[in-house]
């Protein structure tokens, strides 16, 4: 039997219901595990054990009074440092917000609290979610629990590593171009990015507003489904949030939806740049589905090679504007050398932001400049529609799309730090999904010879989460990768 901190929500929820454990016991186990391993993993930027235990105690009291809420009641969920939790630091792993404490809860946090979850700690990330390795954190470098010398992926690297290391039962991340799925793949856990608008962005510190989505990390597809059910819904505080359409009892639907499915495989995703071990692994996974009776459809996403350049125009343009509010005037880092309004801005921003953030702000400022706007931003938006069109065409022939999540397994720390372009290509299979606003999930699909996890991405139709979860669940049920844990 696995340690309590490696159990799933479904298992723990059954144990809680049966009186075999308590939320305090689970939470304490997670706290102790974190104390034991986080010196090595460095997934958390900060923790608040007293606060977590108080929430756990409240959950146990609720249960004792016969008022347990549901499967998430009493489950500790770790939170990425870009999601606002009332009275907790909200630093986005940046010096810019070193002393900032959020006065309010993000809507997804409100909803998790309503479901009884225990909100636990602040997880490391690339500064302002910009990066694919979590090395851009201004505070610490997180190790991949499967090999601490490698990166956990990013930007939600802390959320993925904490899962792999047993430092939380579930975690939340955010995904703008792959920031949940890529680290999930690299850390051998489940990570899911919903349809754009399904979860409110209120309380998510904006990087690229038209691409950002909150999503769960979990040990199993079922757990991810349970977290999604708790968090989704139209929010009056986010105009871009949308009331869900279709089936939303995802966890229940898993038991009924058994396929077989028509599964699209985009030929463009298996060309240049893919690691041979990853390629072989994903081909095996596709073959497994075929053996289960699924129809494998050869599809084309002809504009996918444009996804990375389009992304780095749209995302940086929005970021350059979104990050303008960090100016030293109200709550962000203020330079001591500021002499007037101009140097207050320039010095504070110069000192507060790291290199990658500055690089993207400069890029975004450039593409929005008068005279360049049409050539870059406007054109990128047009290509973005073509990319969406590719998916719409593909989904006429299939129910879901299978791809690798990341072209390579976890790479060595520092290996790509000086090569932003190589780093940007880490998200080559995930970015187009954000540009099209679709849901996608990464699930563990095996290991490399050197023991690093590999992830399979299942892309669903817009609001087709139920189907997407079912396809992913089928693979998970047929394999035991979800039960494997690293040695720390």
């Amino acid at each position: 039997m696995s340690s309590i901190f490696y159990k799933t929500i479904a298992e723990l929820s059954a144990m809680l219901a049966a009186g075999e454990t308590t939320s305090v016991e689970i939470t304490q186990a997670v706290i102790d595990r974190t104390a034991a391993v986080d010196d090595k993993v460095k997934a958390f930027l900060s923790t608040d054990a007293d606060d977590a235990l108080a929430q756990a105690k409240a959950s146990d009291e609720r249960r004792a009074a016969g008022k347990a809420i549901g499967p998430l009641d009493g489950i500790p969920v770790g939170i990425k440092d870009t999601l606002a939790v009332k009275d907790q630091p909200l630093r986005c792993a940046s010096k810019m917000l070193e002393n900032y404490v959020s006065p309010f809860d993000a809507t997804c946090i409100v909803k998790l609290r309503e479901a009884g979850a225990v909100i636990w700690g602040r997880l490391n990330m690339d500064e302002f979610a910009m990066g694919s390795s979590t090395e851009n954190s201004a505070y610490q470098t997180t190790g991949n629990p499967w090999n601490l010398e490698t990166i956990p992926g990013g930007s939600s690297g802390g959320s993925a590593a904490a899962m792999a290391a047993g430092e939380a039962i579930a975690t939340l991340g955010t995904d703008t171009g792959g920031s949940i799925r890529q680290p999930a793949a690299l850390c051998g856990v489940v990570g899911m990015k919903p349809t754009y608008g399904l979860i409110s962005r209120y309380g998510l510190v904006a990087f690229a507003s038209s691409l950002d989505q909150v999503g769960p990390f979990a040990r199993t597809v079922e757990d991810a489904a349970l977290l999604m059910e708790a968090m989704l819904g139209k929010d009056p505080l986010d105009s871009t949030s949308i009331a869900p359409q279709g089936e939303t009892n995802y966890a229940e639907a898993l038991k009924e939806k058994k396929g077989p499915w028509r599964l699209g495989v985009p030929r463009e995703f298996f060309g240049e740049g893919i690691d041979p071990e990853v390629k072989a692994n994903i081909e095996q996974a596709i073959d497994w589905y075929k053996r289960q009776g699924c129809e494998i459809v050869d599809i084309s996403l002809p504009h996918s090679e444009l996804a990375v350049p389009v992304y780095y125009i749209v995302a940086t343009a929005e970021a350059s504007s979104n990050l303008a509010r960090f100016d030293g005037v109200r709550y962000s880092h203020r330079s001591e050398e500021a002499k007037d309004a101009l140097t207050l801005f320039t010095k504070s921003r110069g000192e507060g932001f790291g290199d990658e953030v500055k690089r993207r702000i400069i890029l975004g400022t450039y593409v929005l400049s008068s005279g360049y706007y049409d050539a870059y931003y406007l054109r990128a938006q047009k290509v973005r529609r073509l990319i969406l069109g590719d998916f719409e065409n593909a989904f006429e022939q299939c129910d879901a799309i299978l791809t690798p999540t990341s072209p390579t397994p976890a790479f060595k720390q520092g290996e790509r730090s000086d090569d932003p372009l190589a780093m940007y290509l880490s998200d080559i299979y995930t970015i187009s999904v954000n540009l099209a606003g679709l849901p996608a999930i990464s699930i563990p699909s095996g290991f490399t010879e050197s023991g690093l996890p590999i992830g399979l991405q299942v892309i669903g139709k817009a609001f087709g989460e139920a189907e997407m979860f079912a396809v992913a669940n089928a693979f998970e049920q047929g394999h035991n990768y979800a039960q494997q844990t690293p040695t720390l």
Partner: protein
Amino acid sequence: MEYEAVIGLEIHVQVKTRTKMFTAAPYEYGAPPNTLTDAVVLGLPGTLPVLNHTAIEKCAKLGLMLGCEIAEVCKWDRKNYFYPDSPKNYQLTQNEEPLCIGGKVEIELPGPSRNVEGEHRWVQLNRIHLEEDPGKLTHEAFETVIDFNRAGVPLAEIVTEPDMSSSTEAVAFLNCLRNMIIYAGISDCDMEKGQMRCDANVSLRPVGSEKLGTRTEMKNLNSISNVKAAIEYEIERQAEILDDGGKIIQETRRWDVDTASSFSLRSKEEAHDYRYFPDPDLMPVQMDRARVAELEAELPERPLDKQRRYQTDLDLPFTITSVLCVNRELSEFFEEALKTHNAPKQIANYITNDLLRELSEASEHGESALSVGECKLTPEHIGTLAKIIDEGVISKQIGKEVFTEMFKTGDMPDAIVEKKGLKQSNDTSEIEALCREAIAGNAKAVGQYKDGNEKALNALKGPVMKATKGKANPGMLDQLLKKLIDEGE
């Protein structure tokens, strides 16, 4: 050389709403600094804007009032620039697809004298769009402080075409615009409170030329007299440069009230690149045509339309209509009073003379006059008063006394007449006896009257009115006196 000025105005008007443009924080003028803020107003990390639909409707109503076309869809853009009064360092505005398109405003130029109506003409508008107000900076000796109360207040920006040619036209435009906005209930347009602010674009061209000259933009015009002074100053400044063979530099200038002059803020080369792009946090607004039609039906009559109607249909003179029509409340009070007694001239006179005088006298410390809504009089009071005068119940003279009394107490005029026993005396025998006494007592006046001086009669009426406490029917008195004097010959 002789030049013709070409002037366009940009007017920012705070739209009167309970809450701000993109959040539920309330707004009112004069609250202690930074008390009307919330996480969204301050641009705290993770916050998002949510549209205030009342602001959209009010701005659409403003557009309809000013003859604009209301867009099928309007969208939000970000205007990016760094300034400490801007919490997000971008302003949400409508650059590409504004809510109101085109439009025109009828203006009334000053006449040759106060009592004579001036010429009317139309000023073309380019557009009206909505945006959010920034906070307010106050520069103190060694520091600058920021009040974010104003930040996020809905602001309608009205942009005219370069369609005016003098400061007089610009002032007339602003006055008429202001009236219409107040009429439509969009804003109180108090320039001292920053509810209405104006920038002026001015260029010169040789008289007869069609080609527009290089323009400058004048900022910080916070009163109508500033607008007038700044435009006149700018016309003169540009004319001097052109006369000296110089060239006008396209630039933004700031009006300095203290020195009554302007200085350059930034040239075209130094102008901000605002890096406009569509805001990804707000959805485009689809304007419901049925709702737009409803808003149009709710519009009040435009002040100058009303003035024309009063002059044509009610035969009221400009001296009256110009007072009555600038104030919607006053004109509605007037029309309501007509329902009690349809005597437009009399009632208009009571309102524009007696009522306004009493209102101004009743104001505390003489600061600002009370408004019609703040006094005890209702339209029915004035209608009834006019009615009982017309019916001969009291005289006009007594009417003045009744007016003062009812203004003070709020009692109805007939009740006052009853209570004070002011009913006009139509008792011929009593009045005749008094007339005889008066004639007997003032031979000089009688003589003057006989010599053709009608006014001399007044000296005879006086004692009669005094004896009857003013209640003698003046018409009857006049007739009787004449009759008795004639008979006495």
